[in-house]
Structure formats: structure tokens, C-alpha cells
């Protein structure tokens, strides 16, 4: 046992000495939650920072008292125990009431943000998201566009056991897909989230959206990307969904409204052409075949 562990430690130390040089940007600075690119994600970030600083403040006070006691009331420093100090109703009431007040002060903004998150009125575009083992299907409801989104080929090759491919050499390793979800910026997009086999969870940190995809249920979520922040936003499945849970990323391509409209039109026509060309396939767009394909490569 001891030998095994020390051997493992030796391997680990070796790996450490080899690995860092290759990577372009350092991960040391990744310490905090993203502020994201939606109003909600920024509100979540603000709440997170608020509760964080509240905890820090309480921690500083409590830890200061503990450290002061440990330093001051040492027997080696000549401290004599005050054995009569067993109870103090006043102090005990204070340290019960003050936290109650802090908690109420925390609960109010949290509840307010939560109400806003749950407000699904006036959405402008609905996309059905279906989780599969292991990939996502996106269906632009009533727009005639549906497609599968899976881990991109390069990441998939590199992530095989002992593949010999350096993950550092793969752009956006494990966070890249073949077909990203394309959405317009400045638009309240509603997601209808479900799953086909086991429970998954659709999470894009930059949007502040994480919602479980549950077979037999349709969950709702929404986001509205800032009009001035088009770009690629990445996330991952956040609920353990089996062997390749770590390999079903999400990429959202937020484009300007015009670009999105053009993309949607082109994509719809493309799919229409495909379905007329091969009517048999149209019944089952990719979904039925896709999971087995992924499984086969895994």
C-alpha cells in the first residue's frame, strides 16, 4: 500500500515536471466565478460576491477572536482559567440575533434575483435542448432547424486513454463541439430542456444558466446575451450521466440578430433540402443514430 502510494506520488512528481511548459496561458488566475455576459449572470456574480464578503467579514471577526484566545490564553504564557465563565445570556442572545439579521439581509436580494430568473414571460425564441449519452440535440421549435452537438473530433481523439496526444495542443480541449448552438444576442431565448436517457444538466457559466435535463420532464430556462457581446461561450454537462459525462460540452455561438437570422434561414433550407433528398432520414434526423456513434468512438 505504502509502496503503491509512493510510486504513484513519484509518477505524479514526474508528470508535474514535464507538463507546465507547453500551455499558452496560465490557469493560476482562475480563482473566481465568471461575471458572464447576461444581466442575470452579473446579478448572480454580485450575489456570490456579497455572500462571499459577508462570510469573509464574519470569518475575520470569529477567527480573530479564536487566534487572540489561542495566543493570549496559553498556559505557557501564564494564563489562569476562569472556570466561572460558563454562560452569558446577553452575549448568547446577541450572537443569535445578529446572524438572523445578516441572513435576512442576504435572503432579500437572493429572492429578488430568483424571482427574475423564474420570469419566463416574453421570450422571443424557443429552443428545445435534449440531453443524450453523450451529446446534445438542439431543436429550434417551429423553425425547421434541428441538429446534434457533440465533442469535436480533435478533443475526442486526444481524450482517449493514453492517446499520446497532448491536450495542450488541442484548441479548447474538451470544450469544443462539432455544431455549436447558435443564438442571437439581445434576445430573450427560452430553452426547453429535457433528456432522452438519463439525467444531464445544461450549464453555460457565462449565462448563469444551469438546468437539469430530465427524461420525461421539460424544464425551462432563459438567457439574454448582452447585445454588444457576441462570441463563443462554453460549458459542460453538470450532472453525472455515465461513462462519458466529462465529454459532452456545450458551445453557444451568440451572433448579432442579423447574422443569426441569416444563419437560421440557410440552415433551415439546408435541412429542408436534405429531408426532400432522403425522406426516410427526415423522420429521425440524427438523434437515433448519434448516441451509438458517440458510444462507439468512446
Amino acid at each position, binding site marked *: 500500500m505504502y509502496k503503491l502510494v509512493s510510486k504513484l506520488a513519484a509518477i505524479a512528481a514526474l508528470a508535474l515536471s514535464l507538463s507546465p511548459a507547453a500551455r499558452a496561458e496560465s490557469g493560476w488566475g*482562475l480563482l473566481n466565478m*465568471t461575471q458572464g455576459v447576461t444581466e442575470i449572470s452579473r446579478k448572480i456574480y454580485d450575489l456570490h460576491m456579497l455572500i462571499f464578503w459577508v462570510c469573509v467579514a464574519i470569518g475575520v471577526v470569529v477567527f480573530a477572536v479564536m487566534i487572540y484566545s489561542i495566543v493570549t490564553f496559553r498556559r505557557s504564557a501564564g494564563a489562569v482559567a476562569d472556570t466561572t465563565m460558563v454562560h452569558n445570556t446577553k452575549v448568547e442572545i446577541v450572537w443569535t440575533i445578529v446572524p438572523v439579521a445578516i441572513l435576512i439581509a442576504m435572503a432579500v436580494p437572493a429572492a429578488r434575483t430568483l424571482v427574475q430568473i423564474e420570469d419566463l414571460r416574453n421570450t422571443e425564441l424557443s429552443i428545445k435542448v435534449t440531453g443524450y449519452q453523450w451529446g446534445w440535440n438542439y431543436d429550434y421549435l417551429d423553425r425547421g432547424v434541428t441538429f446534434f452537438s457533440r465533442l469535436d473530433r480533435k478533443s475526442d481523439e486526444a481524450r482517449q486513454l493514453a492517446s499520446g496526444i497532448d491536450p495542450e495542443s488541442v484548441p479548447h480541449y474538451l470544450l469544443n463541439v462539432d455544431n455549436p448552438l447558435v443564438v442571437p444576442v439581445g434576445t430573450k431565448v427560452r430553452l426547453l430542456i429535457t433528456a432522452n436517457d438519463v439525467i444531464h444538466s445544461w450549464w453555460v457559466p457565462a449565462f448563469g444558466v444551469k438546468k437539469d435535463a430530465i427524461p420525461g420532464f421539460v424544464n425551462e430556462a432563459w438567457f439574454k446575451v448582452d447585445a454588444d457581446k457576441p462570441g463563443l461561450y462554453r460549458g459542460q454537462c453538470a450532472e453525472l450521466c455515465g461513462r462519458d459525462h466529462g465529454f459532452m460540452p456545450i458551445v453557444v455561438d451568440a451572433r448579432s440578430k442579423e447574422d443569426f437570422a441569416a444563419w437560421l434561414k440557410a440552415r433551415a433550407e439546408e435541412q429542408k433540402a436534405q429531408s426532400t433528398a432522403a425522406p426516410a432520414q427526415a423522420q429521425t434526423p440524427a438523434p437515433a443514430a448519434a448516441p451509438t456513434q458517440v458510444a462507439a468512438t468512446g
Partner: protein
Amino acid sequence: MAYDTHAAVDHDDHDHKPHGWRRWVYATNHKDIGTMYLVFAGLMFFLGGALAMVIRLELFKPGLQFVDPGLFNSFTTVHALLMIFGAVMPAWTGLANWLIPMQLGAPDMALPRLNNLSFWILPFAFTLLIATFFVPGGAPAGGWTMYPPLMLQGGASFPMTIFAIHLMGASSILGAINVIVTIMNMRAPGMTLLRMPLFVWSWLITAYLLIAVMPVLAGAVTMLLTDHFFGTTFFTASGGGDPVMFQHIFWFFGHPEVYILILPAFGIVSEILPAFARKPIFGYEAMVYAIASIAFLSFIVWAHHMFTVGMPLAGQLFFMLSTMLIAIPTGVKVFNWTATLWKGSLTFEAPMLFALSFLFLFTIGGFSGLMLAIVPADYQYQDTYFVVAHFHYVLVPGAVFAIMGGVYYWLPKWTGHMYDMRLAKWHFWLSTIFVNVLFFPQHFLGLAGMPRRIPDYAVQFTDWNQVSSIGGFAFGLSQFLFPYIIWKCVRGGAPAPARVWEGAHGLEWELPSPPPFHSWTEPPTPEIIARGAEH
């Protein structure tokens, strides 16, 4: 009857006990059973730890180097089951066995044969669980939370896991019954409930939690079993069932369960801090009520483990508020412990060091718990390494450090020997430093967006994962000091006096070290009880 006279003759003051293997297999003595529980917990701790080492090894670098993703999932799943049901819970029962009769002025536990049964179920349960690694399809890989439908995809390991959990649950329930019956019936005259040591109080409440929720877990996993084998569809949407219902039932068990893991730790810390501060615990009654409040609240907060499943707004608000309420009694406990140190006369032997470390690091785990209660923020934290960091902070420097502190506190009492204090302090410092190197960076990883339960990650997470892994290996290696110190102490050492620590109060310190085989054959006198009950 002949039988009675024979029994009466047998139970004189001599330490009659069977020898060899019979002493252990037929054990009915609370100390022998307690020892077996503790040794078993230690074995499971190292086995679960070995799995964790492989997990940290695989996570040392992006890319898959050592294990297949399916096996990785088995490792995380079995690591959790071993640590929760195999290490921490049996360790608590072992400490309860050793200490409760001695602390209450009783000769033994109330139900010694039940005690034997509840221990001996465990080796079978865990043999079954570990055997799943060798069956087709491998060990369970659906997480210790066993969410369907994923869990239903399990192979031959599936029914074995469920039967193992049934056995663990049965063992826990029997142990809990024994604790409650002992506390209710075996207290020495004059040992009123509010004179009991806080360790006994915390265990009394824990035992009620166990009896309340272990059957719920048994029910939930049985429903999984019938869904898989007998055509029911409790959790299958296509048959009119509800996969989310499992989560509700599971966490109705699961949240009290996490307090089952931590409440006895509160009890132990409440014993150690006053002993080394040389003054009574501050706010004894408030401590009892705080434990009881936490236990009550644990039944109405379960859905905070599942804020992302899509609950109604009112439900989310309720569970957020009820969860935040837990901070109040928990705060009371931390403040009382701090006030116990205030104006004390502190010394820093190994048990005290572990208790102080608990005080700081458990509080950090409590802070991240409070953060997780804030629903909108939880949407970002849920199922990330932030959660992993949170529960490891409350379970490792929380529950595990309390167990270690407890062992270092009572070991001289149990063995009659002092242990190597210098080595024990080394064990403490290495553990405390590396537990932070191991788990603190996981807060960063979670906040930066790394999901939990993944065998491989995007390259930007490499740096902090490497720090965490190095901390993990160092923490793991440091733990080998623990059995070595204990073994050395069992084999010999300076003789320990009855009151091993000058500031220690409680009836166990009125008995010689090591205590007689049947702890209190005659109840302690009122004077002894009064001396012991100086909380």
C-alpha cells in the same frame, strides 16, 4: 436455576473474557466491539483513501493517463460509499461503544448481542460492495447518490450494491437502537440527561436521526431494485414514474445523513476543547439545544441538494430560507466553542490541535455551505468542484479530524499507555497543512467552472488540479503515521494515569487506564458523578 447461578459466578470482578478468535467473533463487550468498529473504520479509510489517490492521480494532468472514464466513475462512487458508510459512520459507532458506557457509569451497552450483530454485518456488507469491482460491468459508477435512470444502467454490481446498502443500513439502525436504549436505561443514578457529556448528547440525537432516515434510504434503493427487476416504474417517466422523486426521497435521507456524520464530531470537540482550556464548556445547554435544532432542521432542507432540477419558485425559496436557518444553531456552536477558549488556560496536545483545526476548517466549510444556500449562486456552484471543496471541508477537517482528535484524546485511557506525542503532532501538522493544499484550490476550480465527477478537464484547470493532487498525495502519505502511532501505543509506552489530561472531566477519567473489562460494575457514587459532570 443452574444457569442463573453459573452466570452470577461468572460475573465477578475478574475480567473474564474468551481468548483468541472467539473473543472477537463472539464479542459482546462494548470495548472489544468498539475496537473492532474502529479498526474496521481505519481499514475502510485507507481503502477509500487509496481510491481517492487514484482519482487525484488521474486528475493530475488533462488527458486520460491511467483509468478508463467508466472505472473513474466507479472509483468516485465507491470512494464515497466507503468513506461515508465504511469509515466515518463505523468510527462514530466505535467511539460510542467505547465511551458511552464509561461516560454514563454503566457496565456495558444495553444490548451486547445486538451490538455483536451490528458490527459483524459490516464486513459482509463491504465485502459485497468491494466485490463489485470483479463482476461483469464493474463496480457501481452512478455516484453514491445513485440517481436513476443512470443507476438502473448498472450491471451485475447493481443488486449487490443495493444489498450492501441494505446491510449497512441495518447495521446502523441496530447500532442506533443500542445507543438509545443504553442512554435511556443504563445511566448511573444521578446521571441526569442534562448532566451527560456532550458526546453522549450528540450521539443520542444522531441515533434518532439514524432510525428516522436509514429506512428511507432502504426504501429508496428497494424501489430502484424493483424498477430494475420487477417491472415497477417508480422512477421511470415512460411508465408514469418520476426520476426526480428519487432525488427527493434520497435527500430526505441524505441531508440528515450528513449531520449523522458531523453531530458526533460536535460532541467530541465539545469534550476536547474544555479539557485543554481547563474550563467548562461555555453554554452547555445552548449546545444541546443547538444540536437538537440542527437535527430538526436537517429534515426540512433536503431539496437544497437539487436546486437545478426545476422546482417551483416557492419551493426554492422555502429550501433556501430553511437552509440559511441552519447557520444560526451552527453559529451558536462555533461561538460557544470560541467562548470556551476565552479566558482559558490552553495547552496544545495532539487532541487539542485537531479540535482547534476542526474549529477553523469546519467553519470554512460552513461558510461555503451558506454560500451554497443562496439559490441563484447555487445555480453556478451546483455540481462543480466548489461543492466538492465544501463537503470535503466539513467531512475531512470536520468529521475525520474530530475522530482523530477523539482517538488521541482517549487512546491513553483505552490502552493504559501514553502515545508518542511528538509523532502525533507531526501527524497533525502534516494533515492540517496538506488538507488545505488538497481541498482549498478546489474552491477555485469550481468557481472557474470545473464540473465534479469528471475524469478529465479543460487545460486551464491544470494548475490548481496539480496543487490539489500534490496536497492529496501528501495528505494520504501523512495518514500512515496514524496507525503507526496507535500500534506503538497499544504495544507499550509510559503508563497513563486514570485522569490522563489534567483538565479532563467525565466519568471515563474516574476509571483506571486501561479501564476494567466491564466498565462500571458498580454505579459511581454521586460525588464522582458530580465531579465528572463539571461541564
